[in-house]
């Protein structure tokens, strides 16, 4: 069953003949409603035809304040730059040194976010593991448990501990290099996962102890703890079971990052993962993706404020920011705002081949186009990534895709170093808010850095 009929909204692939060609005077009297544009009309028609809310993958597509609204100031008379290609600029990040006997040591400040086997093919998971390992960073399991393919190909593997506990196995917990207690994710703070019937193959069903072919809706609350006091005890249990060996992260969707971060610290987390509303998902209600949570640029400074007030920032508790990172500029800005690392999901999928124009003919068959493909829930991904179809997933060569991801991670890292050196920093974690200016009043208020050309930080005392 597909919940997305052909020609559904979300993508608006241009036809061969654009009926609204702007250079044709005959069209000049046509005026599209801002309120009821073609995408809105298509969605109302789709809803009326099916009686079901729209489910899709990807993340928020709406326009919102982003890290693009910030710029680095660079060096000047009063700031001394480092040589762009020669002088050392460290990129390593250590997580959990304070409490774990085997802390996580990353060579680069970019990690791969949690994505499940089930939502992704085994080949895609392997590719993520290969790419992350080659680049010296971690990858993360997802809802549905750990596969041996990803353990084998991931030098540092973070095991997600989720509300559904699908496939939750204490042996896997002990095989992991870190544990991430998932409270929420940016695409849907407060929502559980979804995996529709066409992706619940026998292997996925067995891992999750579910009947094949059902539309699976994961729990949104943990079954055995409620609130930060319980979480503290739960983290204690996880530490006991793993003999205090590995770091424990707490991941939250960007909802109330100041309070959530403070409470995660109180609960004993070694790292807090804050996922902004641009964060991706394999399948969620469109209304949830577009209307719940706050943007990454607004979330990071609030999380940092909590860490600073508790005296643990850049010390005992690390901050991993996530949600819509695309470039080294995004990573560098997140670090300058106070994050210790940036986590990527959607960008990693694109790097391994998601929305590949080589499959354009097939995207058209599916009523979409390369660059618009978002029906990760459908299991029909021509690129073989968000699918469990053996023929489609066989299209993805994990080795080749892994090399692409490693290349991309290298570019993100080098770009981050370029910007750090330009601001005179010998380690990317030395970037600071003082290095930034905002291009819009909104960004200045959210990021708590001055509006460019002024000393004005809206809302500051």
């Amino acid at each position, binding site marked *: 069953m597909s*919940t997305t009929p052909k020609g559904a909204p979300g993508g608006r692939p241009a036809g061969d003949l654009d009926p609204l060609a702007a250079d044709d005077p005959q069209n000049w009297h046509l005026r599209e409603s801002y309120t009821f544009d073609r995408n809105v009309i298509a969605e109302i028609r789709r809803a009326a035809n099916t*009686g079901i809310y729209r489910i899709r993958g990807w993340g928020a597509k709406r326009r919102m304040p982003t890290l693009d609204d910030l710029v680095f100031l660079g060096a000047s008379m009063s700031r001394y730059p480092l040589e762009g290609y020669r002088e050392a600029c460290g990129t390593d990040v250590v997580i959990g040194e304070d409490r774990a006997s085997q802390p996580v040591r990353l060579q680069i400040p970019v990690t791969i976010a949690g994505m499940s086997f089930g939502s992704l093919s085994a080949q895609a998971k392997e590719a993520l593991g290969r790419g992350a390992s080659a680049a010296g960073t971690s990858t993360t399991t997802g809802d549905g448990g750990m596969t041996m393919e990803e353990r084998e190909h991931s030098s540092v593997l973070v095991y997600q501990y989720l509300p559904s506990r699908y496939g*939750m196995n*204490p042996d896997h917990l002990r095989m992991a290099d870190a544990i991430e207690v998932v409270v929420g994710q940016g695409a849907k703070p407060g929502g559980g996962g979804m995996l529709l019937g066409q992706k619940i193959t026998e292997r996925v069903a067995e891992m999750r*102890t579910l009947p094949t072919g059902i539309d699976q809706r994961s729990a949104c609350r943990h079954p055995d703890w409620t609130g930060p006091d319980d979480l503290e005890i*739960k983290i*204690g*249990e996880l530490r*006991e*079971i793993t003999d205090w060996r590995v770091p424990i992260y707490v991941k939250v969707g960007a909802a109330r990052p100041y309070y959530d971060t403070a409470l995660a610290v109180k609960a004993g987390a070694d790292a807090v993962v804050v996922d902004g509303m641009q964060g991706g998902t394999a399948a969620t209600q469109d209304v949830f993706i577009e209307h719940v949570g706050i943007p990454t640029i607004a979330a990071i400074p609030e999380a940092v404020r909590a860490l600073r007030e508790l005296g643990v920032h850049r010390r005992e508790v690390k901050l991993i920011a996530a949600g819509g990172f695309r470039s080294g500029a995004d990573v560098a800005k997140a670090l300058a705002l106070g994050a210790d690392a940036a986590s990527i999901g959607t960008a990693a999928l694109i790097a391994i081949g998601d929305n590949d124009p080589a499959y354009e003919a097939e995207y058209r068959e599916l009523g979409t186009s390369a660059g618009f493909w978002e029906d990760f829930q459908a299991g029909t991904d021509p690129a073989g990534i968000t699918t469990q179809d053996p023929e489609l997933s066989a299209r993805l060569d994990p080795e080749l895709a892994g090399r692409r991801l490693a290349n991309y991670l290298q570019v993100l890292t080098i770009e981050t170093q370029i910007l750090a050196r330009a601001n005179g920093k010998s380690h990317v974690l030395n970037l600071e808010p003082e290095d930034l200016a905002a291009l819009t009043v909104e960004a200045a208020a959210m990021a708590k850095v001055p509006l460019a050309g002024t000393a004005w930080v809206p809302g500051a005392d």
Partner: protein
Amino acid sequence: MSTAVRTFDLAESARRKLNQALHEAADGESFEVLNPRGAHAVACGITADIDVVVRGSVGYYGAGMHQQGRVLIEGNASTGLAENIMSGEVRITGNATMSAGATGCGGLLVVGGNAGARCGISMKGVDIVVGGNVGHMSAFMAQAGNLVVCGDAAADLGDSIYEAQIFVRGEVESLGADCVPKEMRPEHVETVAGLLAAAGEAAHGVDPGDFRRYGSARRLYNFTIDDVDAAQAAAQAAGGDHR
């Protein structure tokens, strides 16, 4: 293999020391835990075929993620008793508060007294026998395994249940979404009889024939889609009503 019982008094030594010893234990070893005094995560993460007796009440996550061997708690337990149990046995003589046996994948959990809210939540194959009553929303989203309740069940039993089976001897206050009564056939009586026997003292004298069975109506397994266009196209193709 050692036959001597190793004793840990939590009034004197740390929980960490106990759990580390349990994690390093060899098959066949026996342990006794004194003065748990409501400590959390006591005897959690056991992987060897050992016997552990806890003399007193435990806090959260007692015998959590239990994988092998037998744990007996002589007292009560707080939230998450034997959560995510994989196999082996966990028994408690008293009551358990919330989420007993949560997400358990296998093995046997026996609660001699009552279990609080959400007993067997998201259970994935564990067998749970409760000598007394269970609280509200027990077996919520339960996926596999059996929950046997010798007493009564509070509101919203089995809400959003998948393929787990619930057997209740007493009253059920109300059933949750998609949970329905099901026929108690001979094989189900046999299942209950086996579990009552395994439960031992906690279910002494209980007749397996007295239970009623509940399970999923399977109406929530797939989204309901009223595809008007497709229905209309099919009707047209069949020469039917085009309205």
